[in-house]
């Protein structure tokens, strides 16, 4: 088993939480893991990404080679496109929120962004903000997107649930339940469409 995962978004959107959940789940299954993060200057409202590699064998590089990512998980649609050069041409999945984070003057029309995504062979686009809001808080949008990506991760769904329970436990049971629902809603959405 080997999965190369790119997680992308804008600084402050919670991509590291996604990485932590997948990482914790992978470790609980006894997998090897390497996860390269972006810290520092770029975190200030700029584009950020994390390279997450999980494997049943030792992993050499902290960075995923170009064209070798099995999946891009993005909390922002335009940011998902920034890394399509990394995506595997055969069988690579792009899973992204449809909700733009517009903090730049020249953000392109969202239809153009979505149309570029929809040209790819394998994608899931989800209105994560709406789904999360319906469940109680827009803050869970990142976990909704993770849920939509969960069918392609080769990690047991229960392992992701356990990881969420342990990671969010500090914040109280309400938050744990919200995020578990968010994960499920994302997964159901992806299952219906693929």
């Amino acid at each position, binding site marked *: 088993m080997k999965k190369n995962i790119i997680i992308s978004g804008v*600084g402050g959107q919670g991509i590291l939480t996604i990485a932590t959940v997948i990482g914790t789940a992978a470790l609980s299954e006894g997998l090897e893991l390497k*996860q390269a993060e*972006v810290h520092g200057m770029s975190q200030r409202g*700029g584009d950020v990404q994390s390279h997450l590699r999980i494997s049943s064998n030792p992993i050499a*590089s902290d*960075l995923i080679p170009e*064209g*070798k990512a099995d999946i891009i998980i993005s909390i922002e649609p335009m940011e998902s*496109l920034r890394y399509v*050069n990394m995506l595997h041409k055969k069988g690579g999945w792009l899973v992204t929120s449809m909700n733009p984070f517009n903090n730049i003057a020249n953000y392109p029309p969202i239809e153009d962004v979505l149309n570029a995504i929809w040209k790819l062979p394998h994608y899931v686009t989800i209105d994560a903000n709406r789904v999360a809001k319906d469940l109680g808080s827009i803050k869970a949008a990142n976990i909704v997107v993770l849920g939509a990506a969960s069918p392609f991760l080769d990690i047991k769904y229960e392992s992701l649930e356990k990881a969420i329970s342990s990671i969010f436990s500090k914040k109280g049971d309400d938050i744990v339940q919200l995020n578990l629902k968010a994960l499920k809603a994302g997964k159901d959405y992806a299952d219906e469409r693929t």
Partner: protein
Amino acid sequence: MQKLLLLGDEAIAQGAIDAGISAVYAYPGTPSTEITEYIQVSKDASAKKIKSQWSANEKTAMETAIGMSYAGKKSLVCMKHVGLNVAADAFINSAITGANGGLVVLSADDPSMHSSQNEQDSRFYGKFALIPVMEPSNQQEAYDMTRYAFELSEKYGTPVLLRITTRLAHSRAGVKREAEVPQNKMKLSSDLQQFVLLPSIARKQYNMLLDKQELFEEDAMQSGFNKFFPAKDKSLGVIACGIAYNYLLENYEDGKIPFPVLKVSQYPVPRKMVEKLYEMVDEVLVLEDGYPIFEELLRGYLNKGKTIHGRMDGSIPRAGELNPNIVGKALGLEISEGFETPGVLAGRPPQLCQGCSHTDSFTALNEALEPYSRGRVLSDIGCYTLSALPPLEAINSCVDMGASITMAIGAADAGLFPVVAAIGDSTFTHSGMTGLLDAVNQKAPITVLLNDNATTGMTGGQNSSAFEKVDDIVRGVGVEEAHIRIIIPLRRNHEENVKVFQEELEYKGVSVIIARRECVQTLARRMKLKMMEKREAKA
């Protein structure tokens, strides 16, 4: 023991804790900040009473560590690569004094300049200082080598430089801990002149350092961190330094590299190992993240030996960080490609946060400067450097920590008036105070905008050495009371603030406008903590 999932930075921190340090001394700087932060919140470290407060700058950090070494205890000093420039005087001389207690200097390089002004290679400093350098390739080695660096330091009585790059600093993997080594008891050197670098003593000490060079090389042969891997195909030999080894390995699915490989992680690189590889192969490829230091050595000035490939012959780009594809291309392998990046994509540069005080400071400054020609704001290093970009486009320089004030003096000397120096509180106490003293002594006609947001913001909100001291320092340095102006950078104070700027810009002496409002990030963090405490108290 179960593996810990640690960033490279955290692995170094844990390694240092387990190696028995009594203190870590550091100034925040990406990508090195998380080492000290890890020690600050580590339960192990607090149980062992390991000191971990931030220093005012890298030089004071380095000197404090030399002091601890003088007294016989172990300490780690951490900084980003350009921080080593600030600490260089103390660092280079620490090689001459040698170490009593273990002294390890961590410098985190930033090839590709993700968060830096340059991509200088700290290994140069190691060679310059004539001390051993360790360069781990992964998180486990980061842990192991930190521990070994302390052993090495005490074995040979020398400081040791530990060099990592951004990629390792900020990448996580499983790390296995080893048994803990106790801290040292205080014990001065048997030679009480060891740290007295008077010429007569320094000459003796320097010769001792030169005599150790052979031992350092011998150690790099024996320690096991430099490894030779034989292989059948002798058409090429590969020398892979530090993290570059991972990228090499990544290019061969089964991990079997067809060429002989020398994996380098400890310097000075043993000549015997290099010779062995060089003699058996037709050509050599050198892979190193950063400057082509080893490649240049191997090639020699006249380049009359075997063909050496690397950054200097274009096999690898001269600038920027390595990655698996760059290394694959240098090996002549077929490189995988993903999808074409669509044209619709727009850039998203970092920017000041919503509600940031700097936005209000510079909006007011911009308006006050409107009557004058452009190019009058010399600035410094911090979040506020982002105001060079649209929409503010407010500043015209960013060179090194503290350069705003001193550059403004020079520009004023050349006739630029009015001229502004913009600097943050943490940068001010790092290296700005002395420049302000110069300005006062010369009655330089400059206006200093001191953005006091009560934190070291850009690196994530560490405690600022300037906290609640800015006014007293400015006064103490000798700025006239009438020209120390305190403003609150808020939109609703805009008109008032513009007026203050206008008045001080016209003053032909030193004025300091302190723009004081807490960083929105640290404020939010404080509020969140408060709420959590309240919730816990209720429960």
